[in-house]
């Protein structure tokens, strides 16, 4: 049994390559059928804001990568409820459906469940 990995993504989508690279790691893990989870924390929750327009910055959209997660078998998707609330995001209106909203206690339990944790 492969060891499980929780990736914690905490960078905003337009602040550099961090958000995209975190997603790439998760998608690669999913492609190899590794048990992998993804938690959006701090500014990372901003990746999930609906109706972003990458063209305005002449960049590529992250939303296509986000929508690919379930297709790559990555279904353990979580968002920090506090981070979303602090940034005025409605957890029920995110760009990604089937993402589970967790409070601090829920995230503590989540980290405990995985063999490895990586925070980018």
């Amino acid at each position, binding site marked *: 049994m492969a060891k499980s990995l929780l990736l*914690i993504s*905490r960078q905003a989508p337009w602040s550099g390559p961090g958000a995209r690279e975190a997603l790439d790691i998760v998608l690669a893990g999913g492609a190899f059928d590794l048990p992998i989870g993804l938690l959006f*924390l*701090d*500014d990372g929750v901003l990746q999930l804001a609906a109706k972003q327009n990458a063209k305005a910055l002449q960049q590529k959209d992250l939303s296509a990568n986000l929508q690919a997660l379930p297709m790559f078998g990555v279904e353990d998707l979580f968002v920090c409820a*506090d*981070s979303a609330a602090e940034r005025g995001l409605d957890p029920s209106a995110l760009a990604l459906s089937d993402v589970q909203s967790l409070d*601090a206690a829920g*995230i*503590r339990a989540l*980290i*405990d469940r*995985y*063999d*490895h*944790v*990586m*925070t*980018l």
Partner: protein
Amino acid sequence: MSTLHVLSHSPFGDSRLTSCLRLLGSADGLLLTGDAAYALQPDTAPQAALLAHAGLTLFVLAEDAEARALAIPHWAKAIDYPAFVELSLHHDKVNTWL
């Protein structure tokens, strides 16, 4: 299950320390390395946050604190690199906040 959380960024103008303290489990440890050691600066918000966290198990890389002229308080344990390795092995996993 225990996790060793490793911070290396300055707590001033960055939310890593705040978020880490929010997610820290009772069996977890926190290690300050590099600029994260500035959280020990007396009479600052980061230091107050550390002090306010009940049951905190705190480690600091001694050389990083010394280089920054930071005194290590009695509620933190100064460690060297061999102790860092040992600490990593004593926890189930290490979460480095990159």
